[in-house]
């Protein structure tokens, strides 16, 4: 579906001739002529208007009745008036009606001062009411969910929240019950409204009917300041505005950016801010003295860290977590490569990709953007569950399917929440992403060549079998991507896990072959879009936090160890010091057993952390306090290449220092002074160091960021090996044979802020093992029963969840949770599941 490109038309509003795109709703078009038409129910983000509140009535020449501006598209030559006595009368009438059942408790209402109903009443209202009857009453406030309070008396029944639930997040939970003036918003059965995106309804509510439980009564609009930044919670990097009162973040609002988030936030991003101010936060440098971590001064901590790193020298390994900024990543690689001559640093979770493949996967010519998901003809999601891996993209995909008829295909091991919206759903064995891509490539080759072609007969069947997939599904998928022969905008969204691990390189080649067959080079609106494992995964690679590439993916003179190898070497004693930038290997990385050994054996474990999770609490020798998301300064790079600027919203508490400062200081102590004396200086040095960032400035980034692949500097992107490649025959997925194939996933709620933020604590959950009812029956497992999942001597406990959508022969357990994490087990192998 091509992007709309409407003609410009001219219409008059209140006598002023205004140009507007044809088809734009009058309520929006009026703004182009500096005329404001008041609205309550109209919100373009929610899709088609409903015309319920009747606030936007205007007079249009030639139409006898007043018309709702929210639902009337502008046409050439239309003459609109908004200031006549008739319009004024109607506006006053609607406001008088709206207020008769509104409690007018503005002095104690959270919304007071930033309330559209208040503002519009002042601007357009009659100023007095003739209503003296008793008002309608409801029990109030009620907890719509642990996060949201509902005051039904304040509700003006604009339908916004219900439409969000029904048409945007498609969780179908909110409905209106009863009729007429007794109508109220509720879930159908009175269940709490718990959903990944529920918090958006608070922001949508034009009155104080839906309020945030954590923000209730914490501040009034005149107490607070807004400060724009970017959420570091996940790779979608939504643009946010922190509401700050006295150096505390009290609320997170969306800062709408259509190129990034479309104006929505997930609940983790919206309510996780409470963790910034948690008591457990590390606010001083800590050092292990006699087995205990104790607060020490900065000088001592930095000296000791420098000494430990000096002692280990090139036998130091560094890992950067996803929330590391570009500047910090660049400084880390300066510290490692320049200060310690150690190439052992990585920001990926394991498996090294050749530079030319990195360059190919993110080549500007093959790069899709977030809005492309909404306007493509077809979107293929491979090995990715958007709602968990990049929540806001889930909404974007739903929007594309619902409004623009995007054809969606899902290829994954675990059932996806988007399955219901997809035209084609293909399942494959956990860990068999490579085999699936190879099979899809073969199916596309077959359809390219036509029947009876050179391709070996039955090859698709063989490869599908290796992937544990169904050949017919793969062929249907190939047909969908091909369409009817015309050039189609195809966007392939894949998660980084596809290209991780031992065979990641082969999977990347197979993916590039598929892309080469369905995505024309240098074609706008089509391409690949990766969801990195970490928030700034893309940026960290681009600034050189890779064992085999320096800043700008320049070849590195020494090839270092990747994450998995660092862990293994440290466990074997070959790596003596570990530098952990925003990462706890026991918490965030696979192969927990290896890492436990590594942390135990290393002479020094130096970490930057805001909280002491298990691995750091037990094994760190020095901990530098890390900044919270709202304190950070610098830049990060969005998965589609948009460099976005982080701006500090609050001051750093206690002894917390800027981390660029800590890294630069440490580097200088190792006789490699990066010459960085301020945050902007760090950014400037970074932009100089990365050729395709050349010429960027913080001013240019501003509040919206800049997509570097769309700048001239993109020409400096390193040479890529785009294929097509000769592919190896992938290893056959293990045959369950009585055991189950182990698949892992990381849920949206598996994050430390969910464990720490009081508001989100209710969303923590213990390990669950998802399996098919027939497997459960065979193994004697009941829904909700406790089970042990294990192989090769390691095991975890879990609660069994029977889902008929889970493929038979597979079991799925969760990573990234505090206890019984799937990281104890090896992904892609076979496990025994036994009832306890």
């Amino acid at each position: 579906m091509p992007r709309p490109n409407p003609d410009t038309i001219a219409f008059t509003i209140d006598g002023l001739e205004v140009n507007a795109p044809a088809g734009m709703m009058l309520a929006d078009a009026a703004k182009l002529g500096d005329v404001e038409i008041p609205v309550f129910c109209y919100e373009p983000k929610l899709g088609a208007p409903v015309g319920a509140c009747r606030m936007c009535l205007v007079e249009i020449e030639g139409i006898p009745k007043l018309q709702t501006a929210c639902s009337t598209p502008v046409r050439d030559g239309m003459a609109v008036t908004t200031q006549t006595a008739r319009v004024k009368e109607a506006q006053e009438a609607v406001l008088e009606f709206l207020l008769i059942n509104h409690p007018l408790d503005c002095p104690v209402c959270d919304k007071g001062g930033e309330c559209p109903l208040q503002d519009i009443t002042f601007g357009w209202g009659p100023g007095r009411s003739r209503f003296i009857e008793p008002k309608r009453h409801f029990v109030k406030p009620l907890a719509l969910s642990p996060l949201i309070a509902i005051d039904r008396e304040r509700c003006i029944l604009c339908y916004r929240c219900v439409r969000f639930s029904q048409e945007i997040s498609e969780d179908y939970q909110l409905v209106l019950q009863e009729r007429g003036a007794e109508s109220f918003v509720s879930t159908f059965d009175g269940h709490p409204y718990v959903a990944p995106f529920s918090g958006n309804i608070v922001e949508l509510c034009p009155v104080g009917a839906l309020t945030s439980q954590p923000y209730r009564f914490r501040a009034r609009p005149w107490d607070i300041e807004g400060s724009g930044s970017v959420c570091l919670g996940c790779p979608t990097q939504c643009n946010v505005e922190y509401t700050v009162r006295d150096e505390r973040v009290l609320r997170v609002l969306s800062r709408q950016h259509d190129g990034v988030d479309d104006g929505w936030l997930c609940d983790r991003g919206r309510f996780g801010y409470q963790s910034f101010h948690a008591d457990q936060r590390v606010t001083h440098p800590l050092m292990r003295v006699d087995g205990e971590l104790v607060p020490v001064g900065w000088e001592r901590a930095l000296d000791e860290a420098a000494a430990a790193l000096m002692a280990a020298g090139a036998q130091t390994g560094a890992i950067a977590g996803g929330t590391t900024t570009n500047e910090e990543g660049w400084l880390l690689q300066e510290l490692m490569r320049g200060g310690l001559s150690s190439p052992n640093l990585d920001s990926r979770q394991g498996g090294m990709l050749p530079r030319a493949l990195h360059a190919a996967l993110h080549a500007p010519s093959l790069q899709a953007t977030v809005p492309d998901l909404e306007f493509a003809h077809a979107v293929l999601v491979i090995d990715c569950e958007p709602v968990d891996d990049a929540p806001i993209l889930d909404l974007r995909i739903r929007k594309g399917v619902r409004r623009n008829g995007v054809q969606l295909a899902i290829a994954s091991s675990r059932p996806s929440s988007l399955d219901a919206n997809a035209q084609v759903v293909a399942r494959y064995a956990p860990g068999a992403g490579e085999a699936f891509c190879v099979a899809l490539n073969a199916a596309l080759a077959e359809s390219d060549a036509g029947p009876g072609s050179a391709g070996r007969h039955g090859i698709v069947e063989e490869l599908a079998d290796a992937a544990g997939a169904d050949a017919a599904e793969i062929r249907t998928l190939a047909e969908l991507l091909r369409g009817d022969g015309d050039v189609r905008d195809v966007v392939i969204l894949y998660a980084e896990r596809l290209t991780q691990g031992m065979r990641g390189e082969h999977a990347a080649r197979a993916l590039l072959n598929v892309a080469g067959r369905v995505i024309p080079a240098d074609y706008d609106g089509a391409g690949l879009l990766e969801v990195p494992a970490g928030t700034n995964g893309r940026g960290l690679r681009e600034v050189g936090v890779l064992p085999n590439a320096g800043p700008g993916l320049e070849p590195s003179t020494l090839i270092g160890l990747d994450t998995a190898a660092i862990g293994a070497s440290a466990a074997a004693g070959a790596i003596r010091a570990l530098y952990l930038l925003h990462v706890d290997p026991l918490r965030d990385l696979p192969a927990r057993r290896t890492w436990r050994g590594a942390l135990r054996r290393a002479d020094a474990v130096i970490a930057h952390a805001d909280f002491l999770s298990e691995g750091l609490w037990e094994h760190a020798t020095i901990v530098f306090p890390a900044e919270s998301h709202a304190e950070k300064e610098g830049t990060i790079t969005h998965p589609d290449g948009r460099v976005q600027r982080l701006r500090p919203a609050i001051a750093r508490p206690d002894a917390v220092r800027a981390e660029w400062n800590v890294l630069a200081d440490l580097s200088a102590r190792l006789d490699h002074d990066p010459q960085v004396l301020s945050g902007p200086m760090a950014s400037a040095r970074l932009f100089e160091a990365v050729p395709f960032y050349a010429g960027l400035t913080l001013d240019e980034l501003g509040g919206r960021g800049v997509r570097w692949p769309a700048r001239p500097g993109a020409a400096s992107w390193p040479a890529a090996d785009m294929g097509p490649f000769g592919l190896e025959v992938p290893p056959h997925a293990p045959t369950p044979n009585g055991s189950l194939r182990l698949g892992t996933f990381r849920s949206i709620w598996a994050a430390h802020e969910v464990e720490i933020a009081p508001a989100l604590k209710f969303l923590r959950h213990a390990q669950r093992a998802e399996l098919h009812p027939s497997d459960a029956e065979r193994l004697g497992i009941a829904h909700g029963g406790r089970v042990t999942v294990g192989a090769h001597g390691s095991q975890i406990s879990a609660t069994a969840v029977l889902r008929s959508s889970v493929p038979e022969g597979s079991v799925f357990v969760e990573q990234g949770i505090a206890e019984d994490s799937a990281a104890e087990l090896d992904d892609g192998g076979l496990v025994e599941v036994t009832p306890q």
Partner: protein
Amino acid sequence: MTQTILFSGIDEPGLNTIDVYRRRGGYESLRRVLTQMTPEQVTDELIASGLRGRGGAGFPSGKKISFIPKVNVDKYLVCNADESEPGTFKDRELMQKSPHMLIEGIVIGAFAAGANRSFIYIRGEYVEQADIIDAAILEAQDAGFLGEDILGSGFDLSLVLHRGAGAYICGEETGLLDSLEGKRGNPRLKPPFPANQGLYQGPTVINNVETLATMPHIIRMGGAEYAKIGTESSTGTKLVSVSGNVRRPGNYEIELGVSSREIIYGLAGGPPPGRDVKFWFPGGSSSPVLTKDDLDLAYDFNTLAQAKSMLGSGAIIVVDDSNAVVDVALKLAKFYKHESCGKCTPCREGTRWTVSMLERVDSGLATPMDLDIMASVQEQIMGNCLCVLGDAMAMPVASMITKFRDEFEGHIEAARARNPWGPGAVAGGDADPVLIQGAVGA
């Protein structure tokens, strides 16, 4: 009266069965349509007949069908048998006594519109009628008048009867569509009109039972011949449901254009002896009331519109001088308040407010100034709502206040004189009238 069309032989025993209906010439129009006519010709006949929708809005029916886009998508015909307008019960009799006439009309209408799926949305209270129609649908299917390749013409039509669950708003055409789709029955924003995007987003014709039942007769007589009946702008005959204070309430088929007095006094026998018509609703409870001075108005669409009322669904409710206008207004307002869906502001809040004010008027807690407010509230509702439900209350209530202002004022005075301390005092309660006036508590 000179001519009955729909009610001709309506009381013949067994007319609800296909055999009797066919013996009386039933399904012959359908045979002619399917074997000798094109959809365009059928539409042209309907346009030539001047038939206007019998459900309430009076929109030309042939024109409505001609709005259906000639594109190759699923199209629908929906028969609105919700008949929920108070005072209206004509469709009930038609469906009960001659269900096949409706089915034949539906097939003809669907053929003209190019629709292959049709639905009858019947109000839930019509249990007996629904059973009769269900049986008739089976008969028609067995006889080959419904289903695939009807009468060998290659035209397919499925017909499904859907029972409503008792909401007035589901008689509003777009609310009906939402309800039929299984959603909450709320009216939709128009445009898009159902002709373009109706049921399941497909082009949809929605017609009243009586409208559809008339179609076989138009085909039989020819559109031009049908147009000779009635007046120039209101052709044909109309079923009127006369109720209220008359001696012979019931359904009557009249030629449009006869005098209203002839219907109310001639056919229905007028009010009981010794009483006089005080006012009457010419077209269902949502039409502005007319008084006894208007009894000589011709009963047709245009004349009633000129009298600032409307023919509506053809339901005449007669109120004689033994009733208080306030009682009627309050009863009416309560009905619309109860039935307001709550989607748009003026209707949701305006109906509730009007009921509260009328209750105060009734109990003597109002002043004449409240009548001004009430009249102004009706003005604020009219024309500003999403659908016509709000107007359906505002129009009659406003007309009653205008035409019977003195009686309203007298009612307030009398109630206050009867009970100076408010209604709470009568009930022996300790309610403080000041408190009630101060609007505290529910």
